[in-house]
């Protein structure tokens, strides 16, 4: 019932074409927490097999926005979304769409590394088991493969039975990445994945992203502009101009353009450190 689709490995070159295919498109998105209007009129494409960074000052709704792509916001009572979000051209908010299955295809990494309180092996095998894979050999392969892709295999191959929480913060985050990779997602959402871990581990995760983006579409939320500049191909800048009002998408472009010649004054102010 829940057979895995083959991972999408597209033959795109390392440097993405500026006009590469859109993996995700967002049109006229409005987002509400109860009475609070959080985001308004967001329209943005997410290019396939590239890294797109969302930047902006805290409270600008970028974390809210990234959670729209796998419908994590559904879990918060009282939230409401208008507009259209499509994955491969299909509306993910269409009636009847299973958000649970969507979340398997659109994986997510959180700010706080969140390994489950179980062994490293079980952490990685968690997703595949959810989706019906029970054969030991198949699971073993998936676990090794995923840990390897997350650049963690060498460090943990002898301690797979140990608790996931015994690892260091950076290792935990890579374990979480491995855990997501094990369900072979097409899109990887990363919500400030490096803000709670040490610099060496940040480096490792950034290296990892460079490799992963060859096969997976990555969206990263970061408050660290240097990081956005280093890892992303495209950048979207969000801003809540007046406290209590909805945030807007100020500018979206190739990362180099955003950082070298922003079209909007507000973007320029932000990246040159005037506020935020």
């Amino acid at each position, binding site marked *: 019932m829940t057979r895995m689709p083959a991972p999408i490995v597209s033959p795109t070159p390392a440097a993405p074409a500026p006009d590469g295919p859109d993996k995700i498109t967002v049109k006229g998105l409005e987002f509400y927490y109860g009475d609070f209007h959080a985001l308004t009129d967001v329209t943005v494409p997410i290019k396939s097999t590239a890294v797109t960074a969302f930047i902006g000052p805290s409270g600008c709704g970028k974390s809210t926005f990234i959670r729209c792509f796998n419908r994590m916001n559904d879990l918060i009572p009282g939230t409401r979304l208008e507009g259209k979000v499509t994955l491969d051209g299909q509306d993910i908010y269409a009636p009847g769409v299973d958000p*649970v299955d969507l979340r398997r295809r659109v*994986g997510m990494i*959180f700010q706080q590394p969140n*390994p489950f309180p179980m062994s490293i092996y079980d952490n990685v095998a968690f997703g595949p088991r959810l989706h019906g894979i029970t054969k030991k050999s198949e699971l073993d392969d998936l676990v090794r493969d995923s840990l390897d892709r997350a650049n963690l295999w060498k460090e943990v191959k002898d301690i797979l039975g140990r608790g996931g*929480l015994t690892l260091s913060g950076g290792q935990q985050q890579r374990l979480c990445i491995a*855990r997501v990779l094990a*369900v072979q997602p097409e899109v990887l959402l990363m919500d400030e994945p490096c803000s709670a871990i040490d610099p060496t581990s940040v480096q490792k995760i950034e290296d990892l992203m460079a490799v992963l983006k060859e096969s997976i579409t990555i969206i990263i939320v970061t408050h660290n502009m240097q990081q956005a500049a280093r890892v992303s191909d495209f950048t979207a800048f969000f801003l809540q101009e007046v406290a209590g009002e909805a945030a807007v998408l100020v500018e979206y472009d190739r990362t180099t353009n955003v950082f070298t010649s922003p079209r909007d004054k507000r973007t320029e102010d932000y990246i040159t450190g005037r506020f935020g």
Partner: protein
Amino acid sequence: MSKRIANQIALALLWTSALTTVAVLFAVILYVVVNGIGQLSLGFIFTWPRGVNAEGGVWPTIVSTLYVTALAMVIVTPIAILAAVYLAEYAVQGRLVSIIRCAADTLASVPSIVMGLFGLALFVEAAHIGFSMLSAALALTFLMLPIVMRTTEEAIRAVPKYIRWGSYGLGATKWQTVRRTVLPAAMPRILTGLILATGRAVGETAVVIYTMGQAINMPVSPLDSGRPMTVHLYLLAMEGINLPAAYGTALLLMIMILGFNLSARYLLRRTRKV
């Protein structure tokens, strides 16, 4: 200067109240241990009471106590855990939830003798179950329910929300998330709550005295009656003829309860360490 003296006096009083509390605990334990230890023997534990004044052992009362406690826990555990899952994971704040919480609080505060009379009226008489393990266990269930519900809900709420996100992010359904990540993560604390509730059930008297019956009997089926250790102790103490057996029963009861409490503490501490 006087400010300092006032402080010293106040501190001394606070120390005194704390030490009094500890001293009372040790006095009660010591009293029961000193008087009961001579009575304890395998013979006392494993033989039947004999004669008009219950000489001999207390074995059927131990079995009755364990029987009714186990039965009550078997009934209450799934209900309370799933109820807590509902309150902690599924419920949306609203009228329904506040009714449930209010009911749980009320249930928790019902005096145990009222619960006993309720059990007598409903299970023993109206439902014709009679004085039995089952009647007593069902009455105990309502006593234990709010306790286990609360500790379980707290345990579930203490599981970080990140853990849940991680599971949802992998495409787990709500129930898969609860069952495979939240409950296992909360399990040590849930077990602690269950053990404490078990201790409570073992020590309960007023609920079981008019639901289980008082005749000494070895229960086999849940419809059998019996006499739990607490009621045996009460009857022995008030009859006052065979006090050694009363001391022995009190000590056994105390050992069981302390055992439950200490193992719950141990479990909790082991959980906190990691």
